[in-house]
């Protein structure tokens, strides 16, 4: 995005400029600069939640939009995510201390037989950035892992990811088991992965298919809001 970061001293920037510079640095995947920027904003008295949303999440939203529009590609998104992860590591303990708003809790994992986790990791990170508590089950998860974790964690959302045509049908196994056990309606079920589509999501009985991490966040927020509205109405 910018070519002359070497000359920029972050601590000398006005706060507004610093936040914009952090958006650039996130876009360019500069982890150390993001960590430095986060620390500067905290030193200047910003609440951790404000740093998270206005500096990091807003920056990653630009990255996500450019990925969606074919301007950025997977390697650059991964570098940006890695930079955001650096900032998140500083903010996470502070967010817990300062009682930042919690949107809900998600259990997420890649399904049995599948070891691909790049998309799932991006979703985890963006969900955390949006204020969700995320329990990441990792890769190659049988149905028991999802159901035990969802019950144990009292999760609102169960997220499943698959990259392979051969493994994506396993999502239906998980959902069917939830139906058999009478717990399907206890959770919002979101699915994602390269070979999936909306039709597949509907066919297996998921609540929604999420095309990318940004869509996953918006979909999760939407379903949580509906859930709260139903509870208020009921």
């Amino acid at each position, binding site marked *: 995005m910018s070519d002359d970061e070497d000359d920029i001293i972050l601590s000398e920037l006005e706060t507004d400029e610093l936040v914009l510079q952090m958006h650039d640095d996130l876009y360019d995947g500069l982890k150390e600069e993001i960590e430095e920027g986060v620390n500067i904003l905290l030193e200047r008295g910003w609440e951790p939640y404000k740093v998270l949303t206005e500096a990091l999440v807003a920056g990653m939203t630009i990255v996500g939009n450019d990925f969606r529009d074919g301007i950025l590609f997977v*390697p*650059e998104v991964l570098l940006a995510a890695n930079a955001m992860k650096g900032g998140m590591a500083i903010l996470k303990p502070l967010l817990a201390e300062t009682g930042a708003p919690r949107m809900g809790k998600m259990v997420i994992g890649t399904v049995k037989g599948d070891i691909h986790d*790049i998309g799932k990791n991006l979703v985890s990170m963006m969900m955390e950035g949006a204020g969700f508590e995320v329990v990441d089950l990792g890769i190659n998860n049988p149905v028991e892992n999802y159901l035990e974790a969802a019950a144990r964690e009292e999760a609102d959302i169960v997220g499943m990811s698959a990259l392979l045509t051969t493994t994506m049908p396993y999502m239906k196994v998980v959902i069917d088991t939830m139906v058999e056990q009478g717990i399907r309606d206890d959770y919002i079920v979101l699915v994602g992965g390269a070979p999936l589509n909306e039709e597949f999501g509907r066919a297996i009985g998921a609540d929604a298919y999420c095309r990318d991490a940004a869509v996953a966040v918006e979909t999760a927020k939407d379903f949580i809001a509906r859930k709260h509205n139903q509870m208020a109405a009921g």
Partner: protein
Amino acid sequence: MRTPDDTTLTDSGLAAPQDGPGKVLIIGCGAIAREILAVKSANGWDHVDLTCLPAIYHNHPEKITPGIEAAVAEHRATYERIFVAYADCGTGGMLEQACERLGVEMIAGPHCYSFFEGNAAFAERAKDEITAFYLTDFLVRQFDAFVWRPLGLDRYPELRDTYFAHYTKLVHQAQTDDPGLAKEAKECAERLGLAYERRLTGYGDLTSALTRVSEA
């Protein structure tokens, strides 16, 4: 029919012959053009023509179904029979639905790794091999174009473990017994930090699928 070079197959695919079209047209993936032409030549199928979509669609499966739909529409009037030489190939069932709609057959199975090995054998082995990264002969030759550069490893080598940490071995599914290619495949495994295994598959289920359509 002359086989174009691998780079052309990757980026542009293969055009259908302009003169004297045969009765059967195979619309295939550029990544298996050589293998299809080898089977055609070995069987003397002069009535069979081949056109291919760019092999790089392997990395963009969302382009495969529209590409096939357009190619079938373009050639339907010229040929008695059309066969789609793709398996599902990451289309999530979309290609199968399109082929049903268009009334054309396609190769059974999830992808070329599966049908080269034989769908039944691959499925049997798959559950014990989820940490394998597969390369066919074509993908070994085009490793930089299909793996190294698209993953950004030429620019950001530090991302290698982000992509491959959960993999343990690279399986070279060799369609031909070529020691030079085996050496290249081993180098690919080393570049990815994976163990190397070579498996001579030949053309697997591809031969029977092409025979079914060409000799019907």
